[in-house]
């Protein structure tokens, strides 16, 4: 047995017509902030619900501190969850909502309200304590949901896409608050999201899932810079993939032949000559000034601003679309126009090969 706080062993969840979670193994360490990430339907929420005991796996085992949990009903697991829609009790006011788990534990009413008051203050809800849920804004509801989950001082907090119901500026604010809360409390946060930015900015580790299977587990940086496979590379979004076949294979470097030409890249473990593969170049590793050693040309077909970051869409000769991510000021100085020809370049050390 390792030092994992929560350990999932060969967990599967099968429905009659499909498999929601397929032979999942995961060890979660005490105090870490871990995110489960993937497209909708990938099984991340089901995994979270199985941890909470809301769903039961069809096979596998789940250990908390080395103790099997599958026989423990949800109410005894002590893994409160923050729900996507907050799932606050509409017929109770803020304070009563926060007191609810304490009431279920049989905490006497005085102690309950004292404890709830602490959390109400901590979450900055003091003036709303007696309000009905329907009178609160989204952000306030979020804080009530957090307080309600944390009031029993659990060791693990489960969060099921908790920010998706909020608008974007609030989402970023809450991210900071969650990180701060995680640091202050020092407990384990297990966070489900489909948003890469949420997962990557907050988490210690990220689990990428697809079709019920774990695709990769690692720190955000590991995943970003070294995707395990084409799915991960594509899913995390800002990567460009060029299909081809391995031409030459050496210790550290490799060459791949694609219909856009032959490119150099870092080699990868298990690669074989003449097998189909994909060349991966991160969008923010591409230069527009031609300073990279590998070159390719195309036309600008579109652009997209998010804050100070701009994404350019470049149509290559074979019709494929390339993404290039730059700071806005870098792009502005180049004075680009739609349809204008452009040379993209990158360094071979930033390109790597992935098996198809």
């Amino acid at each position, binding site marked *: 047995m390792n030092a994992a706080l929560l350990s999932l062993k060969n967990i599967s969840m099968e429905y009659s017509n499909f498999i*929601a979670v397929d032979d999942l193994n995961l060890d979660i360490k005490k105090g870490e902030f871990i995110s489960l990430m993937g497209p909708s339907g990938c099984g991340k*929420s089901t995994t979270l619900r199985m941890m909470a005991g809301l769903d039961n796996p*069809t096979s*596998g085992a789940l250990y908390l501190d080395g103790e099997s949990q599958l*026989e423990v009903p949800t109410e005894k697991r002590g893994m409160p969850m923050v729900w996507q829609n907050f799932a606050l009790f509409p017929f109770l006011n803020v304070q009563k909502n926060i007191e609810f788990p304490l009431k279920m534990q049989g905490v006497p009413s005085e102690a309950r309200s004292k404890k709830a008051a602490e959390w109400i203050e901590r979450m900055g809800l003091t003036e709303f304590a007696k309000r009905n849920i329907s009178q609160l804004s989204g952000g306030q509801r979020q804080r009530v949901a957090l307080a309600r989950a944390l009031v029993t001082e659990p060791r693990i907090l489960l969060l099921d896409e908790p920010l998706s119901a909020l608008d974007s500026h609030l989402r970023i604010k809450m991210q900071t608050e969650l990180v701060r809360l995680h640091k202050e409390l020092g407990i384990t946060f297990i966070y489900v999201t489909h948003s890469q930015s949420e997962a990557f900015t907050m988490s210690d580790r990220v689990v990428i899932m697809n079709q019920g299977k774990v695709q990769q587990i690692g720190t955000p940086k590991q995943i970003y810079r070294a995707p395990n496979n084409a799915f991960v590379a594509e899913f995390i979004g800002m990567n460009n993939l060029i299909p081809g076949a391995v031409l030459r294979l050496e210790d550290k470097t490799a060459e791949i032949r694609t219909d856009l030409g032959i490119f150099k890249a870092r080699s990868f473990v298990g690669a074989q000559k003449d097998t189909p593969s994909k060349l991966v170049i991160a969008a923010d590793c591409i230069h527009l000034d031609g300073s990279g050693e590998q070159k390719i040309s195309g036309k600008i077909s579109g652009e997209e601003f998010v804050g100070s970051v701009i994404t350019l869409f470049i149509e290559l000769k074979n019709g494929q679309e390339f993404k290039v991510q730059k700071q806005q000021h870098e792009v502005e100085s180049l004075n680009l126009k739609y349809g204008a020809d452009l040379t993209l370049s990158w360094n071979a050390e930033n390109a790597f090969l992935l098996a198809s």
Partner: protein
Amino acid sequence: MNNYSDNLVLSKNISTKPSIKVRKGRWFPAALALPPLLWQFMFFVLPMFFLLALTFWEVKSYKPVPAFVMDNWIRILGSSSFQKALAYTIQMSTLSSIITIIIALPAACILAFRINKKHQPILIALLVVPVFTSYVLRTYAWQVVLSPQGLINWVFSHLGVTSIDMLGGAFALQIGYLTLCLPVVVLILTFSLLGVDRSQLEAASNLGCRPHQVFWHVLLPSIRNGILLAVTTVFMLTFSDYIAPLLLSGSNPPTLSILIVDTIKSGAQWPRAAVIGIVMMLFIGLVLWLSQLLSSKEKR
């Protein structure tokens, strides 16, 4: 994939995987389901089977005794009074379904679309109240209105019109059936009209439908299930009704409900009454099945 409900459906799967123990507490849903199940079985399903068994019993000195004879079926199905009553009841119920829908539909349209939204709930409440106020008395009260010396003929006599017989017979019966069904049907139709997506109607007009075309080609098809529900409700209610034929048509001629009670009154022929009852239920079942068949399956 978000199967929020408990995993009873999966229990089968779980039990085939020995590595997982089924979470304890499965007695709980069973404990919840048991009272309704037992109650309805004891006091609804069982009596219904008993009714079927009763049709094969014999009556000895005014008392049904267990037996297995076909006599009751033969007697009832072969009796002309039963056949006539059956035909008459079907005819009256069908007529009532048609009349009620024709009268109720315009009222429902006005209520759903042409009334100030502020007044709507009050009017709907006014329709709900009579549904639950003594039907027996409401029917009886029509005697006072329809009789030769009743309200209508009293007004007629002041206008110099000769009095007309309205009580006794099909007209009075239909008035009674309307009393029973009209509020319910207006409610059903109003609610199904309120459920129609207004943008569909606007889209139809926008595409060049005249108002009557909108009505026939868009509105009516979209409340098809509501109309079917209304028709089956009227059929069911009138088919079973005992009060209107008793109090308004003077049992002239008798409907099936009257025949059932008569069969029991004269000579305690419970088994024969049970036969009539089974036939009645078969017809109601048939109507329900037909409406199920005709209802549009698409979900709103």
